[in-house]
C-alpha cells in the first residue's frame, strides 16, 4: 500500500532541480529516473530558463548525483544546455566513477620508488610521483605524471608532469641534466658544466614567466606546498 504512495511521490518529484548560487546555476539531476526522462525534463526547464531575459551569460554546473555518466552522455547534457542563449556549462559532476578511472586516479596519486641506475637508452615512467634512489645516466630518461624526486645524480632527461601538469617539479640531489621537461615546457642544459658546479640538491619548476628555472630545494615548500602530504600534528622536537 505504501509502495503506491511512494510511486506517486516519485512521479511528482522533479527530475531536474535548479538552484541559484552566486556562481550561477546548479542543476541537480535525479539519479533514479531513466536518462531519457531526465533529458526531456531538462530540455523543458532549459527552455524556460533560456527564454527569460538575461543581461549576461549564466554559468551552469550540473550535479548528476549517483548516476554514472558516459562521455557521450555528458556531451548530450552539455549540448542541451549550451544550445540555449546565455547558458554556459562550466562542469558536469558525478559522485560515481568506474573502476578503471579509480585505479588511474589512485596511481596518479601514488609515489612510486625505484632503486637503481637509469642507464643510457632506458626509460622509467610512472603515472604519479617518482622517487628514484639512484642516478640517471646521460641518455637515460625518467618520466612522471607528477613530480620527480631523485636522490642521486641527474645527468639524463627528466620529464615531470608528462601528461600536462604544469605544477610538477623535479628535484635532484645533484642536478646536471641534459634536458629538463615539465608538462610541455623544455629546458636544455648548458653545453658544458663547470667542474665544481652544483653540489647541492636543487629543484626545477615552471615560474611565472613560463620558464623552467632551477633553484635551491628550500624554495619548494613555499612554491608548491601541496607536495607535503604530511598530515600529522606537529613535528616533534
Amino acid at each position, binding site marked *: 500500500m505504501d509502495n503506491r504512495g511512494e510511486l506517486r511521490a516519485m512521479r511528482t518529484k522533479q527530475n531536474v532541480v535548479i538552484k541559484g548560487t552566486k556562481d550561477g546555476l546548479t542543476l541537480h539531476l535525479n539519479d533514479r529516473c531513466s536518462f531519457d526522462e531526465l533529458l526531456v525534463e531538462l530540455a523543458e526547464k532549459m527552455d524556460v530558463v533560456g527564454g527569460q531575459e538575461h543581461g549576461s551569460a549564466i554559468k551552469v554546473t550540473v550535479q548528476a548525483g549517483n548516476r554514472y555518466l558516459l562521455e557521450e552522455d555528458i556531451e548530450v547534457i552539455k549540448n542541451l544546455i549550451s544550445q540555449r542563449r546565455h547558458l554556459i556549462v562550466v562542469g558536469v559532476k558525478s559522485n560515481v566513477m568506474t573502476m578503471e578511472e579509480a585505479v588511474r586516479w589512485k596511481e596518479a596519486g601514488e609515489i612510486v620508488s625505484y632503486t637503481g641506475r637509469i642507464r643510457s*637508452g*632506458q626509460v622509467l615512467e610512472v603515472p604519479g610521483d617518482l622517487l628514484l634512489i639512484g642516478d640517471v645516466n646521460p641518455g637515460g630518461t625518467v618520466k612522471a605524471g607528477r613530480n620527480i624526486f631523485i636522490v642521486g645524480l641527474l645527468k639524463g632527461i627528466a620529464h615531470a608532469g608528462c601528461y600536462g601538469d604544469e605544477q610538477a617539479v623535479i628535484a635532484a640531489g645533484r642536478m646536471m641534466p641534459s634536458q629538463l621537461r615539465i608538462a610541455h615546457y623544455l629546458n636544455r642544459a648548458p653545453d658544458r658544466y663547470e667542474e665544481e658546479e652544483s653540489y647541492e640538491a636543487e629543484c626545477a619548476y615552471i615560474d611565472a614567466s613560463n620558464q623552467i628555472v632551477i633553484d635551491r630545494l628550500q624554495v619548494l615548500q613555499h612554491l608548491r606546498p601541496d607536495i607535503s602530504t604530511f598530515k600529522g600534528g606537529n613535528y616533534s622536537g
Partner: protein
Amino acid sequence: MGEAIVITSGKGGVGKTTTSANLGTALALQEKKVCLVDTDIGLRNLDVVMGLENRIIYDLVDVVEGRCKIHQALVKDKRFNDLLYLLPAAQTTDKSAVHPEQMKKLVDELKQDFDYILIDSPAGIEQGYKNAVAGADKAIVVTTPERSAVRDADRVIGLLEKEEGVEPPKLIVNRIRNHMMKEGDMLDVDEVATHLSIELIGIVADDDEVIKSSHQGHPIAHNPNSKVSIAYRNIARRILGESVPLQHLEDPKDGFLTKLKKFFGARSS
C-alpha cells in the same frame, strides 16, 4: 664444465676483437683450455687477428645448420699444445642466419670440452649482439675513455643487467692515452668506472704494438715484455680469480725521468 664469457661494447672499434684474441691467448698461457667464438657473422676478423685465417674449413653457420660437427669447425692455434681453439664466423651469410637458441645450444656444447669460451660480439645491440649474449654466463664490456664509447657501454650494460643467466658485467677500459687523460682531454679511468658503476677488471694502454701484432696475426699477449701484454695477462689472472692490482699507467722510463727531474729540482714540462 667451463664458463662462457661474452665480450661486447655496443660501439664498434673499441677493441672487442683484440681483447678477445689477447684474453684467449693469455688464458691459454695459464694452461686453460680456451675456445674463441667469433659471432660477427658476415664481418669476421677474429681469425685474422689470431693469424688463423688460412686454416678455416667450416664455420659457425655450418655447425648450426648441421653441415659439420663442432670439432670439425674448430681451428687449433698451433702456438699452443691443444689449448686454444677458434670457432670462426661465417663470411658469406649475415647475422640473421643464427638464432639465440641455436647459439645457446652451441655454447653449452662447447662448455663440456673447454674451461673458457670467449664469445666475441659484433658491435651494436641487434641480432648479432643477442646471439653473442645468448649462451654467456658472464660478460665483459670493453670501452675506451671517450664519451661516445662510454655512452654505448652504458646502454649495453643496461641490456646485460636485464639478461637472465648473465652475471653482472665487468669493465675493461681500453686504449688509454695517459698524457691525454692527465690533460683532461679524455675521461679518466675513475670517471668511466664511477659513471658505469660496474666492477673494473682491467685497464689497457693505447700502444702501437697492439696494431702491429694484429697486423701480423700474432696476439701481443704472447710477448712477455710488453706492458699491454702484461695488462691482458693480468686480466686473465683476474678472470681466474686472482686479485692483481691495476697497472700503473705511467711509462716506467718516463716515471724514472720524472723522478730524476724532480730530484734535481727541475720542473717536468
